[in-house]
């Protein structure tokens, strides 16, 4: 187990190096002068002078060769210093630490929403295979999987905020603020989980021990929940783990729509502003979150399903 974990952490290091180097290179081949963008953001377009731009180029270290800038950044990042935002001048680390919890809360809330929809829908769909309920759940799952989440977000705003006036369009801090973003992200996830729960349940329901349970006269409800679902849930957990990573992707657009003050919105805003220090930090943090979440899920499997052993796989 320990070798497995250390191998995965090695992987994390490579991924982080890979994406941050790529981001750095892209920043430098991209059109547009970062020093000019920063000067524009700080002093405004009207009273911009050449000296101001050049001062920023020197003070932010933007005049050094790319690889020196990168080594400089890396050395500081390893010490926990991600530099200062080119636009606001605030330490990036501080900003990231404020934003990260918002994204994690949203991701977890979305996961809860998706499970509340998907598990019952998947079980009913499998237990009542080829009935109206099953078709309904499957159609819903198909729709959910193809639904653009940004469109769903706008439709939810249209219904619950604009028309009914029940929920706020944006805001942060109260329970009612998280409902729409979490439902937007959660329903998309629920589609995939529903399909998997259903197929996994159908497979388990054909097993001999289910026939045995039926033969000894157990109630159907008992069989479904105690015998079938417990076993059918293991592949579902695998998918939930994979989804957690993809939830991070979803947060980018959804946070932007609902003005949710998380990492996703920070990333999008910093891309608009070409705030390289913040972009780089967001990329770094997303990589760490993604790899660590997947690792935690993998470790969790061992405790849930004792049949899984990582060493033997090799």
């Amino acid at each position, binding site marked *: 187990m320990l070798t497995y974990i250390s191998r995965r952490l090695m*992987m*994390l290091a*490579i*991924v982080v190096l*890979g*994406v941050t180097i*790529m*981001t750095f290179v*892209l*920043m430098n081949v*991209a*059109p*547009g002068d970062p020093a000019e963008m920063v000067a524009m953001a700080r002093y405004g377009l009207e009273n911009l002078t050449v000296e101001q731009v050049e001062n920023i180029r020197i003070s932010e270290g933007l005049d050094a060769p790319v690889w020196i800038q990168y080594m400089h950044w890396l050395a500081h990042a390893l010490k926990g210093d991600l530099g200062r935002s080119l636009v606001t001048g605030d330490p990036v680390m501080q900003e990231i630490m404020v934003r990260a919890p918002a994204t994690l809360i949203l991701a977890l809330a979305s996961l809860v929403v998706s499970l509340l929809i998907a598990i019952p829908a998947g079980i009913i769909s499998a237990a009542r295979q*080829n009935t109206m309920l099953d*078709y309904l759940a*499957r159609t819903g799952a*198909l*729709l959910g*999987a*193809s*639904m*653009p*989440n*940004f*469109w769903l977000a*706008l*439709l939810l*705003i*249209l219904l619950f905020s*604009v028309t009914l006036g029940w929920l706020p369009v944006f805001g942060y801090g109260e329970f009612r603020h998280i409902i729409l973003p979490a439902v937007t992200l959660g329903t998309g996830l629920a589609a*995939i989980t529903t*399909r*998997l729960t259903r*197929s996994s349940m159908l497979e388990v329901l054909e097993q001999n021990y289910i026939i045995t349970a039926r033969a000894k006269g157990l109630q159907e409800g008992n069989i479904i929940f105690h015998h079938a679902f417990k076993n059918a849930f293991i592949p579902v957990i695998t*998918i939930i783990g*994979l989804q957690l*990573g*993809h939830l*991070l*992707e979803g947060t*980018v*657009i959804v946070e*932007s*729509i609902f003005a949710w003050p998380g990492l996703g919105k920070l*990333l*999008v805003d910093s*891309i*608009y502003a070409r705030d390289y220090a913040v*972009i780089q930090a967001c*990329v770094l943090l*997303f*990589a760490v979150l*993604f*790899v660590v979440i*997947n690792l935690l899920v993998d470790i969790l499997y061992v405790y849930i399903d004792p049949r899984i052993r990582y060493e033997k796989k090799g």
Partner: protein
Amino acid sequence: MNIFKNKLTLTGMIIILVLVGTAIFAPMLVPHNPNEQCLNQALKGPCLEYPCGTDEFGRCIFSRIIFGARISLEIGIAVTAVSAAVGIALGLAAGFYGGAVDEIIMRIVDIFLAFPGLILALVVAGLLGPGILNVMVALALVGWMGYARVVRGTVLAEKEREFIETARSLGANDLYIMFRHLLPNVIAPVIIMASVGIGYAILASAGLSFLGLGAQPPTAVWGSMLSDGKSYLQTAPHLTIFPGLAILITVLAFNFLGDGLRDLLDPRLKRQSVE
């Protein structure tokens, strides 16, 4: 394969055919010039003259959606073609040569898979600057790994078979064996992945243009039409409803087709559908 699936596959195919026809004959089908502004007709609801209403500049939304189909399909097909080509080439090489080549290629695949693709695409497209080509580059960059994995797996299984040995003993070189004997075996899974992949590329590109990274105004793109409509949710919700519907139906059609093809061509892949 049951009736439910059959019908869906057929529906998907019909929708895709209609879409392709729409994209090809767009200039003949539109009731208005998609970029023509009639400011006195701005924000009109759906009516006989404007089937989907007009936007804030008085442009016909229906015509813009039809032209948007063109760009969406172009992006979807181009991104998928490039991803598949890169994935197939690398997968073939990894599976065929094995050893260090395999190790290097598959570690690169692992690295790419260990980062959320859409975020990488967003960063790449964002840094390269707005534009359709940049969106395509960004999406292709994060879309090839699945193909490489599947192709490698198939090649690993097939290369030990006797017909490969026969080909070799007849003097066929590596490239000939790869492209003539191994490639045909990977076509089925690649087609399945590609049909879902086109839908995903269309969805992802719509997401990027929703964030303002796709085609620039006045080009009609579904994603940016949606983000324009966002400001008029209260007074003119049709700006938001119709382009979104177009994205949903298109992506749905490709997913239907992909699901159907999976059952038809390769029942073994069924379990992977959910991943």
